[in-house]
């Protein structure tokens, strides 16, 4: 593939998907803006390098989220977390839409989940993937997604109890 063609297609992909990728990454990293940006940069770089695979995928968008999730899980498996990719701009300070108390509670609840359970929650309840799609992203059986999701939701109910009742969530 010619580099110019790849650049054009990749740019369109980034323009269309980066915001959502960053938001998903912020949930995976429990609101850590720098780590989320690091994660998305790493993911997009992998996508650029493997662009021919991306465009051959049945769903290039899903391919991106799979790469994001796998990159996140790979990072968490390593002993040392890294967050020092240099960017040309400094990430913005967060301006979440929820009130600060609710936001803090939600992020604390997410932090209490194992990385894989957190990935399940993001895939199933933020990105709205069905069980089969989430299983494909995570490379596991649908039953595993269901069980991980159930455990994660139980934890969220426990931590977010009052907030959930107030908002009628879950």
């Amino acid at each position, binding site marked *: 593939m010619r580099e110019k063609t790849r650049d054009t297609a*990749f740019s369109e992909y980034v323009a269309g998907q980066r915001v959502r990728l960053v938001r998903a990454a912020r949930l995976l990293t429990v609101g850590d803006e720098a780590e989320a940006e690091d994660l998305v*940069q790493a993911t997009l*770089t992998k996508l*650029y390098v493997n662009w021919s695979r991306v465009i051959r995928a049945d769903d290039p968008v899903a391919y991106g989220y799979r790469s994001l999730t796998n990159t996140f899980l790979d990072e968490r498996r390593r002993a040392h977390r890294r967050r020092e990719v240099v960017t040309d701009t400094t990430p*913005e300070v967060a301006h979440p839409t929820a009130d600060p108390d609710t936001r803090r509670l939600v992020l604390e609840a997410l932090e209490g989940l194992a990385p894989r359970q957190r990935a399940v929650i993001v895939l199933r309840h933020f990105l709205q993937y069905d069980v089969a799609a989430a299983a494909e992203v995570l490379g596991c059986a649908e039953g595993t997604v269901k069980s991980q999701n159930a455990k994660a939701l139980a934890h969220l109910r426990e931590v977010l109890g009052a907030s959930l009742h107030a908002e009628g969530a879950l």
Partner: protein
Amino acid sequence: MSDLQTLLAGAVDDHVDLDVAADVRRGRSAVRRRRLTLVGGIAAALILAGGAATALVRPSILPLHSADTVTATVHAGAFVIPPPPDGWSVQAADESLVVIAPDGLPKVDLHDPSLSLRVAGKLSIHLVPGGIDSPEAGPTIDYDGRSFFDNEHGGVGTQVGVREASGDWLVLQEAPRLGWTVQQMVEYLDAVVLTSDAVPDPGA
């Protein structure tokens, strides 16, 4: 939208700075680095096949080039390098690689499989196995009696390199934010000296 989705969506900022060009630049740099790594790997195989394996483990100690233009030097891993630019410092170094980054960034793990991503945007000096004419086709710059290659002159993520007496390639990858010219890169790289501990990157 489920209630949980509302809570999740509300917990993170929906404002994202979009710099598509920066993502493209990082991608291009990663591709270039991978190509260089692949070429280096082929070179290493050629050297080993030719019975010149000693070049991989015993690089020669080379004289300092352009010593009169360098007021101070910094020991970084197995390299002696000119002082980093103002506000930058050596972030990590070993026998094959030096990473120079803006002050204050945490150390990078040089054995990280995704190191290329961690090096993106930083100034790096990399010793890779030689054995071929040039890691990348590109114009040649003659300086200080040596020939340097420039694999993408005028572009972002430029690398310049020079073949050392050992036959290995010493490569400098630019940090785009420094805005260095190819000539500045050549002059900086020319002043880099290998110590007897320097070893071409076995992963390259």
